[in-house]
């Protein structure tokens, strides 16, 4: 029994020596590979969107991500036209319908999403194009009547739905103003995005098609690219405990990324220490925490 065991180990050793110096380094290689390729995967998968949903999607609300916006813009005008005219598989209307239903599904998928609900509570300032009676959402007026042309701060969920029905026009929110843009251009990693908007990217993606400002996509992408690098390096460095100031400027999405990177590192380390002996202790820790 014992000889059999060592034999198989030897075999394994030889096999892996060809590819990796030690078998225990294998997951580390995979880990490095995945983290280094992740941004490019995202780019590749999202770059495909303009082909499945041509540029008229920009007129419809919400192409979801800064990167989609970027991808749509990066297609040259001629090519855009081309895509629209020669989308031979689906007619224009069919595509539109497909796109709408996929949006609907996406929205329903987030129906119970706590973060999505909180994000939609962000206020935007709107100008009413139509009058509305019997509502008390304008604090400046004493009557419960909103006149055409009055400027009101509304939460995003309300502003969005009213904008779809052409009842209001939405202004660009203050977190995407010129000042923020300049700051992001200067030093994106050091900008305090959380105080401006805790869901900077998600909110940006949702607001961009509504206000019709196509530069927001670029802004989000460039901000995310440079900040992502920073988060990844900081999450893996030893100094993250001391980086408490660093915490306070991250948006909610970035914190999620940061935590994911850390937990990946933690589980990798746990795997290397190995042994099912540790398994129970970890389970115990987690369970204990939840009972507290």
């Amino acid at each position, binding site marked *: 029994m014992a000889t059999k065991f060592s034999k198989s180990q030897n075999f394994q050793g030889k096999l892996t020596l060809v590819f990796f110096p030690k078998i225990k380094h294998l997951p580390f290689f995979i880990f490095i590979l995945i983290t280094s390729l992740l941004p490019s995967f995202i780019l590749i998968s999202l770059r495909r969107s303009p082909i499945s949903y041509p540029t008229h999607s920009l007129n419809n609300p919400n192409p979801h991500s800064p990167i989609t916006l970027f991808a749509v813009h990066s297609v040259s005008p001629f090519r855009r036209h081309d895509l629209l005219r020669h989308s031979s598989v689906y007619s224009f209307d069919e595509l539109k319908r497909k796109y709408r239903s996929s949006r609907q599904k996406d929205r329903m998928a987030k129906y119970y999403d706590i973060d999505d609900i909180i994000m939609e509570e962000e206020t935007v300032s709107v100008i009413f194009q139509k009058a509305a009676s019997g509502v008390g959402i304008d604090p400046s007026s004493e009557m419960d009547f909103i006149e055409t042309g009055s400027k009101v701060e509304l939460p995003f969920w309300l502003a969005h739905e009213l904008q779809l029905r052409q009842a209001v026009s939405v202004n660009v929110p203050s977190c995407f103003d010129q000042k923020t843009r300049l700051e992001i251009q200067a030093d994106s990693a050091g900008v305090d995005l959380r105080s401006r908007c805790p869901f900077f990217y998600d909110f940006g993606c949702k607001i961009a098609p509504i206000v019709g400002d196509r530069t927001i996509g670029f802004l989000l992408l460039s901000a995310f690219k440079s900040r992502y690098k920073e988060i990844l390096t900081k999450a893996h460095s030893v100094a993250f405990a001391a980086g408490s100031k660093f915490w306070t400027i991250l948006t909610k999405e970035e914190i999620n990324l940061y935590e994911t990177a850390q937990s990946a590192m933690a589980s990798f380390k746990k795997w290397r220490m190995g042994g099912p002996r540790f398994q129970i202790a970890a389970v115990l820790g987690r369970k204990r925490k*939840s009972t507290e």
Partner: protein
Amino acid sequence: MYGRTACQLVKEFASGDKGQLVSFNSDLFQQVVAECSQHHLELQSLIRKIQEEGLDIQTARNADHYGALIHHLALVRNKRCLMAYVFNRAEIIRNLLWKIGHVLPQEIEEKLCHTEEEHFKKHSTALKSYMSKVMVDLTVDMVPPKDPYIKVRVLDDIGDGILLSDDKTANFACHSMHLLKRTDAEQFISRGQMEELTG
């Protein structure tokens, strides 16, 4: 502002750590429900007003229409917040069953409202009946043990006369040490009443 109370409710849920429960805020919940009925009344009165003016509800686009629309949207939003609150709590409660076992500790049970306790009990009976049908205990650790027996120390006075799977009873006095079957010990460890001794 419309929908603010509902969002407060959701934010309160989100403020806890992931997978942790805060006590069910029935006060705020009732406030949101009351707000919903208020919206409903105002919506109805606006619709009646449109009808009294002799306009078609389907096509009228006057101030009353947009007022009614805003009330409708606020209603839908409040509903979404309430649904998300209940749904996400229910998910955590179902997870507790897998993590802690069929009996909830006192401090967690206090945080549930009556219907949530009911939900937990029903989920627990459903799982039990399923497990007895397939004759597998699904709640045990997924990783196969090297040794079926583990050494444990009792942290809490559990009491004596507890029946183990091999038809023996054991006296788990506080700080005593035992060699138990892993499947027997697991539920006590998960509740924090025992700890595993390693090395």
